[in-house]
Structure formats: C-alpha cells, structure tokens
C-alpha cells in the first residue's frame, strides 16, 4: 500500500462513524436567532467564540441517559415555569431521548448550576464583565435552549459579573463548582490561585475567565492588545489544578519524549514549544506556548497568539513567555 492509499484509508477509518445530525437543518435555520445574541454579546466586548457555539452537543441517545435527561425537562417545566421548547412543555407526555437543555438566561447562576448538575450535565463556567445583565445571572449559554443533549454533555453558562474588586476566595472553604470560586475578576491578574506578576506592556485584560474547560479545576483568561476583535487574544493563560494537572503533566512528558529541551523557570522544569490546536508539539506553524509546574499539583500554560508573536518578533515572543512564567506566583 503506498502512502496516498494508506493515508486515505486512515482518514476514512477516522471519520467512518461520523454522521451529521438529522436536526442540522433545524439548527441552521435557528441560527438566524443566534446572530442577534452574538451581536449583543459582542457589543459588550467579550468572547464571541463562547456565544457562537450553538451546536447540539451530541445527539446519540443512549438508553441510560434517558431518565436523567427526562428529569431535567420536568424540572424546567415545573420549577422554573419556562420549559425549553414549547413541544417539551407538557413534560411526561413527551419522551425526550437524551434530554433537552433548558433556557437558563436571566436565572441566578447558583440555581442554574444546581439544576444542570442534577440533570447530569457537566457544567462549565465562563464569566464576563458586562453591565447588560445583573451580576450573578446567566447572560448566555451553550448549547442553546432546546438543544438535545445527553446527560454528561458539557453545558457552558456565561455569567455576568461586575469589574469591581471581588473578595479574595478562601481556598479551604470554597464550595467546589460554585461560580464564586473563580474569584478572579478584580483585575484579571489572579486566576486559579495564581497571580500573574508580569505581562507584556500595552496588553489589556480580556474581561472574561473560564473554568473547567481544560479539565476539572482548570481556569483560563486572556489579555489582548486594545482594538482586537472580541474573542481574539494576544496572551492566554491556563492554570491547572487538582484533576486537571494530570493532563498537563502528560503533555509535558510527551514533549520531553519528542526531544523538546527543558528550560528552567524559578527552579522548575518548563517547556517552550510550538503547539497545535490539539496540544501536540509541532515543528513549524503552531502557537508558541510555555508549560510548567509552579508547585506540586499546580500547572500553568501560557500561549502567545501567532498574530501577536509575528508583530513583536519570534525572539521577543519567547522572551515575553519566559518573563510571564517567571513572574507568576502562587497567590497566598
């Protein structure tokens, strides 16, 4: 078998099980509505990326997910008085395989967190600074209300917050999973218990932060040059703690196995590599990224966008990454 055939065969095998969802047409036509939301949120200078994603997460109905999903529809109809879609409003009369994501916008974030967990969804939280919705309420969500999603699917809620200083979170007493434990929206320089002491000059905080998108107990935020389109970044940081750390450790091991040279940041081993979308090391292209461990159980990753790196030059980009890493400390 020559390489072209082998590659074709491998690609075919890779996607053989993939089929477009039968409800794609509906989702595409519903898309018109989402543009309105996207525009509104873009006006608040936040992540368009977060709001633009409105895909049915997974449409495979597994028999074991039906009870949990069904109870979510019931909860939405009974307790909240606002069921997801009009067709699902009659509750038990409608068998909804895999469940349907309810409309969460405007609701109290704590309440929503509990509802989603109860239904078996994985909750991911993004906070944005905006005055277009009361602080602590859900400003946006993905997937969109009415989307079918089985238990276990990730549902991201976008919570409105104010830019004012937030009380410092106390690590020991925090309620795991509550939005408050981000506690980092004062100036955007502290996330996941790590303080960012150095940033390249001229960057502004992106005024958002996300939680658990990179594994349980991971935190992320970004800084950008003024005037960038919403959703774009110049520097993004991810802090990995507890369960999320193992993902980063595995990646560091694979970089080492591929021959990446370790450097030292504050006495700890770090790797400065070019990384693909999936987190693999690449030799040309990719995103310059530094990964290191701040302390046992605390990992960090800082990446510089290819656009910003091109602007300041490759050497300067690497220098800035090292300086950011060296300036990051545990927030006591």
């Amino acid at each position, binding site marked *: 078998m020559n*390489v*072209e055939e*082998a*590659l*074709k065969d*491998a*690609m*075919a*095998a*890779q*996607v053989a099980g*993939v*089929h*477009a*969802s039968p409800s*794609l*047409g509906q989702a*595409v*036509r519903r*898309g*018109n509505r989402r543009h309105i939301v996207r525009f509104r949120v873009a006006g608040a200078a936040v*992540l368009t*990326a*977060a709001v*633009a*994603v*409105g*895909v*049915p*997460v997974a449409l495979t109905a597994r028999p074991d997910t039906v009870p949990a999903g069904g109870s979510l529809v019931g909860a939405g109809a009974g307790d909240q008085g606002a069921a997801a879609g009009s067709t699902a409003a009659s509750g038990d009369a409608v068998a909804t395989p895999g469940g349907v994501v309810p409309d969460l916008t405007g609701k109290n974030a704590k309440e929503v967190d509990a509802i989603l967990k109860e239904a078996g969804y994985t909750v*991911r939280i*993004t906070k944005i600074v905006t005055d277009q919705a009361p602080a602590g309420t859900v400003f946006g969500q993905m997937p969109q209300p009415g989307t079918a999603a089985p238990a276990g699917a*990730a549902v991201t809620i976008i919570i409105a917050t104010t830019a004012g200083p937030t009380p410092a979170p106390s690590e020991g007493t925090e309620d795991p999973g509550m939005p408050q434990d981000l506690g980092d929206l004062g100036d955007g320089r502290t996330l996941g218990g790590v303080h960012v002491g150095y940033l390249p000059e001229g960057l502004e905080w*992106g005024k958002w932060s*996300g939680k658990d*998108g*990179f*594994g349980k107990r991971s935190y992320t935020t970004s800084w950008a040059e003024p005037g960038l389109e919403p*959703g*774009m*970044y110049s520097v*993004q940081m991810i802090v990995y703690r507890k369960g999320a750390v193992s*993902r980063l450790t*595995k990646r560091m091991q*694979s970089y080492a196995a591929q021959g990446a040279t370790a450097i030292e940041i504050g006495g700890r081993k770090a790797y400065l590599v070019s990384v*693909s*979308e*999936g*987190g*693999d*090391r*690449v030799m*040309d*292209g*990719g*995103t310059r990224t530094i990964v290191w461990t701040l302390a046992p159980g605390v990992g960090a990753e800082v*990446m510089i*966008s*290819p*656009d910003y790196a091109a602007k300041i030059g490759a050497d300067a980009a690497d220098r800035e990454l090292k300086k950011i890493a060296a300036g990051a400390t545990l927030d006591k």
Partner: protein
Amino acid sequence: MTEEDEAAFDEFLAARSTALLRTAILVCGASESDAEDMVQNALEKVYRHWPRIRHDNPEAYARRVVVNGAISKARRRKVLQEITFAHPPETPVESPDLGLRDVLVAELRKLPARMRAVLVLRYWEDLSEAETAALLGCSVGTVKSQAARGLARVRARMENLQGVSA
C-alpha cells in the same frame, strides 16, 4: 425563500452535510462537536444566500467556508475555550500498539493546518491540484509542494513504523 428553495436546501443537507462534517474533522483535527459547530456556521452562510447560489455549486461554496474556517481555527488566534482531543484524554497519545491508521492520523494532526488541508482535499476529497488551489486561494505550485512535504512526513512515519514491526 420559496418552499421549493427550502426543500432543495433540505435535499442538499441530506446529501452533503455528513461529508462536510467529515472533512471539517479531518482538516482541523478537532473533536466532532467543534467540527459540527464549524459546519453549522458554514451552512448558515449557505442558507442565507441559498436562492442565489443553489444552482451554482453550493457544495464547493460550503466546502470552502468549512475548510478555511478549520484552518484558521487550527491557527489558534482565537481564545481557546477547551482543548480539543480527538481521542479521549485518558488514551495515551502514542502507545506502541496503535495501529497504522491511528499513527497516520496522529501524524496528520501534527502537520501545519494548511498542509493538512491540502492532504485532506487531495487524498480524501479526491480534488485535483487545480481545484484544491482554487479552494485554498493559493497557486497550484503551492499545492504541489505542500502535498509533497506532507506526504514525505507521513511516509517517513509509516516506514519507520513498518521497519520496527518487520
């Protein structure tokens, strides 16, 4: 949009959406749900202009939107919301007993996005060099050199693997 337009759009979806989704997954190396997002985005554009483009190769238009979206996504200029692993994270990235197919797909994912797109379009979609160049907005020469470099890397990996197992 007339009812006939709507019906034709549904037909187009039924015929083409799975192929578009597969191409998106291969080009951006992303998870199925990310790829669905890109495909839906592309199809929304198609839908908006449907009465105008339905007789003018809507498939090529949709594919162009999907592929270019996938390339720019892979370049990570946008904030990352989530690392997208095609394999579940607990699967080791490269365990020795991975089959040839998995190794090739892993190698494909390591290529720069544009080079990967060339390989997918040429060898998965079976597009000609000229069609691939038109879709990516580059010269035929670039398609040739990118395909040759990409194939060389995949080939090296394949020979390496077969050398070990032989």
